[in-house]
Each structure stands twice: as C-alpha cells, then as structure tokens.
C-alpha cells in the first residue's frame, strides 16, 4: 500500500507540475509580432551646451586638461579598480591636483549594453565612487567631486564585440568651472 501511495504521489506530481524542464512555449512568430507599428514623426532633438566648448581664464582650457585625463576601465559586473588601472588613477590625480584644483570634477560612470535597468546605473555609480575614493586617497579635494551614472546610455563604442563592451565599462572625467 505504501508503494502504491508513493507511486501515486510521484504520478500526481508529474501530471500536475509538468516535467522538470521549464522550457517555455514562446510564440515569437505569432501574428501579433507582425503588427505594423505606425510611423512616427522624425526624432526631435535639441543641441545641449557642451562643456568642451568652455574656455577657462587660465592658460590651459578645460578641454585641454580633460584630454590629459585618462578614463578608468572596469571588468564585467565589477566596480573595484584593477591594479592595472591604479596607475591611470594616480596619473589623473596628479594632473587634477597640479592643474585642475580650481575646477569641479564630475565623474561619469558608464556600463556596457548588458542591461538597461537600475542595477546597471548603480554599477556605473559605484565605479565613479571607487574612482572618487581613489582620487581622494591620492590627495584630491573630495568637496569638489560630484558623480553621475549614465548606465549603458553613453557608449563610446557600439560594435557587438567584447573589446567594444570593455571600452564602455568606464569612468570618464569632466571638468566644470
């Protein structure tokens, strides 16, 4: 009786829970997917002020200084600064202390295209925060540093390659007067 009961439970579970493989029945080819989407009007954009266009009162322009600062790159799903990148940060910190101490520094965190969700934005921000902490440890003024994350929305490279994705996982430097 015990074995009958056991086998009946197993049978019941098989019948009502389906097999263990939860592969979905996806109907991507349904007629719905062929529904024509109405053509919308052309993209509206407006020109926004570019920081690079500003000229400082000093001998070196903001854009000249910015071009000397090297972006910091990160591994997939990571926000710690690799030993390879620590030299970049040290060099950046030296430039900031020597020539850019009168400016505010905006750190822009970025991610690759794998995800457009909040987590990706947070990952970008933690990258910016890691660079901020490293710069402050090297003597930069924390009160002059702000941070922002653009998630995956500010790529410098759009090819579908690993090399390209690694270029997008970065923190950029922007100097503000």
């Amino acid at each position, binding site marked *: 009786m015990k074995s009958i009961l056991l086998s009946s439970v197993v049978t019941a579970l098989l019948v009502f829970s389906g097999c263990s493989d939860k592969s979905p029945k996806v109907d991507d080819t349904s007629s719905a997917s062929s529904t024509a989407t109405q053509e919308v009007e052309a993209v509206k954009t407006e020109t926004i002020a570019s920081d690079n266009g500003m000229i400082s009162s000093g001998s070196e322009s903001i854009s000249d200084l910015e071009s000397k600062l090297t972006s910091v790159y990160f591994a997939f799903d990571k926000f710690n600064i690799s030993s390879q990148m620590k030299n970049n940060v040290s060099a950046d910190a030296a430039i900031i202390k020597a020539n850019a101490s009168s400016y505010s520094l905006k750190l822009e965190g970025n991610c690759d295209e794998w995800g457009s969700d*909040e987590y990706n934005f*947070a990952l970008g921000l933690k990258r910016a925060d890691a660079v901020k902490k490293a710069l402050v440890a090297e003597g930069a003024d924390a009160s002059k540093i702000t941070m922002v994350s653009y998630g995956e*929305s500010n790529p410098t490279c759009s090819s579908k390659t690993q090399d390209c994705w690694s270029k997008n996982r970065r923190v950029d430097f922007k100097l503000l007067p």
Partner: protein
Amino acid sequence: MKALFTLLFIISLSFANDATIEVIKKVESLPSLAVEESSTSYDDTFKLKFFKSFIADLNVISIFNVDRHYRKTDYDANDVIVENKDMKYVLRYQVFEDDSGYFNAKMKLIKESQELMNKNYRIKKKDFYMFISHAMAYDINEFMGEPSVEWMKRKVIFSRVVAPKKSELVIADYTLSYQFVVVSGGFNVFPKWANKAQNKFYYTSFDGAKPTLKKVDIKTGKTKSIISSDGMMICSDVSDDGDKLLLTMAPEGQPDIYLYDVKSKKHSRVTKYGGIDVNGQFIDDKNIVFISNRLGYPNVFSKELANNNVEQMVYYGKSNAACSAHNEYIVYKARESSNAFSKNTFNLHLISTKTDFIRRLTASGINEFPRFSKDGNAILFIKNYKAQSSIGIIRLNHNKNYLFPLKYGKVQSMDW
C-alpha cells in the same frame, strides 16, 4: 484506487491557481473565430491596417483560434461568408467616417447565424484607431466572460535612447502602434506613472547639476522638480494610492532605497547595505522586494519597511538584476549562462513565494524590465534581440508571448 483519485484531485486543486505552473491551452482546443470586414470609408491601406491591429488584439486576448484571412462582406448580410461556415464564431465589423468627420466602428459577434452581441464606437481622430481596436477586443473578452484584460486599455510610457546621453519619453498604447513624444531633448529616463488614472508621471532628468526626479501633469503640461540626489535618482515604484514612492538615491555615492512621502515631501532611508541596493518594489504597505548585490552578485531580496530584516527570495540564476512583484509572485531577470556574453543571455523567470516552482517566461535575446499588469495576469517587458528593441507581453494563464517592435531607437525603461 479511490484513494489514488482523491489524492490526485487534492493535488490538482492545490496547484490549480499557481501561475508558476505552465497552463497550456492548445490552439486546437480554442474555439475558432473568423473576422469579416465591411468598411465603407477610408482607403484599402488603412482598412488593412485596422484589420491587422484588430487581429493582433484578438490574438492577444488568447481565447480564440483566430483565422487571419482578410475577407470582406456586407455588414447586413444574412449569412456569413462561405469560407467561414465552419467557424464557431464570426466577428463582423465596419469602420466608417461620419458627417462630422469622426472615426466610427461597429461590430457584431455571430454564432450559428445568431447575433450574440453588437457594439458601436466613435472617436474624433482616425489616428487613434488602435484604441478602438483594443476596446473592441476588450469588449469581446468581457462578453465571453473571460478574466478582465483591463491592461489592454492602459497606456505605456517609455524612454527611448536616440543617441548617447539623448533620449525622449514616449506615451503609447500597449502595442506601440500609437506613439506620442511627451518629453524630447536632453537625457530623461525611468518614466513611471504617478497614479492609476495615468494623467501624471515621474521621470529622472539629467539636465541639471544633479539627477532630478520630476513630475509632469499631462493635462496642464506643468513640470515640477520633486527631489534631487548626487549620483543617482530613480523612481522605482509608486504605491497603489500614489502617496508613497520607492526611490533609488545615492547622496553619498552609495545607491540605496528610500521611501518618499508625496504629501509631506519627507524621505527616509530603507536600505543601508554598503554595496548596491536598487529597484525597490512594493509588495504591500509594509513589505518591499528589491535587488541587492549583498551576496556578491545581483539577486532579489525582500524586506519589511519597518525593520532591517532582509530575506533572500530567489535561489536560481547567476545574476538577477531586475524584478517586479505582484502579491506572492515575483518576476525577475536572470543571466543563465556562465559565459557573460554568450547568446540567450537574459531571461525572465516567475516564482511564487509560496512554492518552490520556477517558470521560465522567455527563450531568446535580452529580456528585461518586467512589469506586472495591475491584475497580475500579464507581464510587460523589454526585449532586445538582433538589434531590434520590442515591447513584449506575456499572458501568464495562456502561456503566450507577443512582441511589438519599436521602429527606431532602443527602449531604455518603461512603465505600464
């Protein structure tokens, strides 16, 4: 033997209402439905466009095996078209322009030469035809006594990235056929409806010195700034009554979840972990689920608002970076392969907090941003596959996914 059947019956009852179990209604078992067109106004291109939209809606309600042949007949003809004689149901409709230039539609549902129901529709502009199509499908679903598809009439708001750091906010119907750009220029993301009526919405603006949460009243067109934060500012969820918001902010470079009171304009910190806490979603007045990397990778956790007890909710998936909750159900995005950049990378899964079942909801591409419908019967999501961005809809009880592609740009985020 009697005991066996009793046992089977009890088990079947216990699983009957669990959405994590795949319920496969075979297409053959659904009643057949043919659609006959009798329109008198408008050109053939438009007539076909409306027909396609209507067929898509009838497919999405998932209660008929819909015949997709485009056949014409007289609206008042006594008999159905010969080819449709064997169909269980025939739906005949007509669209026409009246003397005032309004767009009109009328339809009748026929079964065995008997008219079961009929209904008329009228709207000012022909451009809004898809809303009539959705309403017609909604009414047929209601008439057939099926669970409501109220979500079909709701609007979708999404942000579309058109260039690096440039986006626009778009309001659309659930199929994206109708699109209205409501905010353009600059970089604006994470739109979120502010109330059930869908006449106000929040979004994050990057145009100021700090990311700022803004609120737009669609009727008046007025925009006001709500709150700013250095680093990050996202409205992750709005309570059912619209009085409370779950925000992700990072005033000290530390992304955490905050509870914002719309009336008092005060906020309090809900999570205090030193890593990443984002994507807070109300389960009810007292509990939330959210995404955290406190185990070293992103995963779904729950928490009571009043205390610091955190519970892991998902034990499957290597990287679960987004979620949406409805009662005991949680839908989340998971990276399944060990190779981060292999194909088939991100899929949506559904779990119940009351059982151990996991149901995979998607099969290919990058599937993200899941959002439950208000009644929990459907899930809207973003699919990016082969350079095509689409909005998808999953009918949980019918085990079907439908995709509605975006003409250009990439969907960054959306709300329903």
